[in-house]
């Protein structure tokens, strides 16, 4: 279990307990948090679950796969700390994780 804080583009914060094994995307979607669309449901096919990972957490959220890297390269408003949240698996080590949402996923 990890407490994850999702911050909407307008600054609204949602702190949610997310079960291990789910993805950071699923934690948001199953709790109806706005700002992560996840059109493909986690197939790494759409880049509509884009988040910015807080600097302190970049190492713990792991490396991007080639597919994720490639999808992000062509998404909008991408920064160094951009990730596709469907590709980050939740573990105890992510307790306290903070992610921010872009203005739009489309």
């Amino acid at each position, binding site marked *: 279990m990890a407490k994850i804080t999702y911050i909407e583009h307008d600054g609204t914060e949602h702190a949610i307990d997310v079960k291990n094994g*789910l993805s950071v995307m*699923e934690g948001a*979607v*199953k709790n*109806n948090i*706005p700002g992560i*669309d996840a*059109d*493909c*449901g986690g*197939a*790494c*096919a*759409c*880049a509509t679950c884009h988040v910015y990972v807080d600097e302190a957490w970049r190492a713990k959220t792991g490396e991007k796969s080639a*597919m994720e890297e*490639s*999808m992000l*390269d*062509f*998404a909008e408003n991408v920064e160094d700390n951009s990730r596709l949240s469907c590709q980050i698996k939740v573990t105890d080590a992510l307790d306290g994780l903070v992610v921010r949402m872009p203005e739009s996923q*489309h």
Partner: protein
Amino acid sequence: MSGQHVAILGAGHAGGTAAALLRQYGHEGPITLVGAEPIPPYQRPPLSKAWLKGEADADSLALKPLEFYAEHGIDFRPSTTATSINRGAKTVALSDGSNVDYDVLILATGARAIALPIPGADLAGVMFLRTAADAEQLKATVGPGKTLAVVGGGYIGLEVAASGRALGAEVVVLEREPRLLARVACETLSTFFKGYHEQRGVTFELGATAAAFEGRDGRVTGVRLADGRLIACDAVVVGVGAAPNDEIARDCGLETARGVVVDLEARTSDPAIFAIGDVAHRPMPIYGRMFRMESVPNALEQAKQAANAIVGRPAPAGEVPWQWSDQYDLKLQIAGYAFDVDEVLLRGDPASGKFAVFHLQGDKVQSVEAINAPPEFMMGKQLIGNRRAIDKARLADPTISMKEVAV
């Protein structure tokens, strides 16, 4: 409008998403969500892919946990269908004998798998793949030592074939047309997929029409082809397309075409009734025409359109239609539709397992089919939406970045 009662008929990806979005957007009135299946809304795409291979479970397929609906004041009615709509009285009659009043109605009744009108279609072991229950039945039937016959070489058929092989079954695909994916993809893709599946042990019978299913003791044992041959099998999946569940809309006099006709707010000819997802016949401004789509992104886009209109928010920006398919280690991503195309351009080498096919109208991209090629898909999708002209020579050269193909 926030106190209004919104009734949603159909609890698939479209209906379930509309209910959740209405709450997300601050709708305060009651919401009733009526679903034919016994379980709350879930994702269908994994049924033919990860779920069939045992890589996803029921919880992970659910759009929201079951508790979500009660916690958010959504009256979810499983195993229930609507039988008629009385637009004058604004009530819907349900299969359990009850009636639901509405201020706003959303039709999200989806589509159903088309059955083959041939002898033996009711034999045990002749299946479809539309619902979680269908997938459960299929998973229990296929495995090592079994032969699965797939009728229909479309995306569902090919995904089932790939999953069947992963489960250790022998797989034969029967397709009426002379090539696979005949209605939905270009010839380059048909040829590529056929070869890729054959290398992984799938057998194809093209130009083969199923004339009857034969069986013993009520269970299917083979498919009889129109040319007289018998293809022996232990199970059949019929994947020959889907038809919209729009009868209830026709019966109450809503305008229909190949589905329920809606505008860009997903509103039908009755301003109090919306239609979203597979059942809707919708405008697609990029292509200057109306059509019906069967895809999750379409269901989500229309759920957004309807929910925004109902709560009085501005309409969301139009999206470029897209879809995806996973087979073996292949990721196919398609953006747009190949309408009004005058040139087909290949980028990359199919033999490398990584390429894209662009469908052009002049120097504009109408659609792209990308195999293991996310940059081509992502940039192609943007080019379809923004209508920027491309340089064909640069687009055809895979050593030039997709960021540099626009003029």
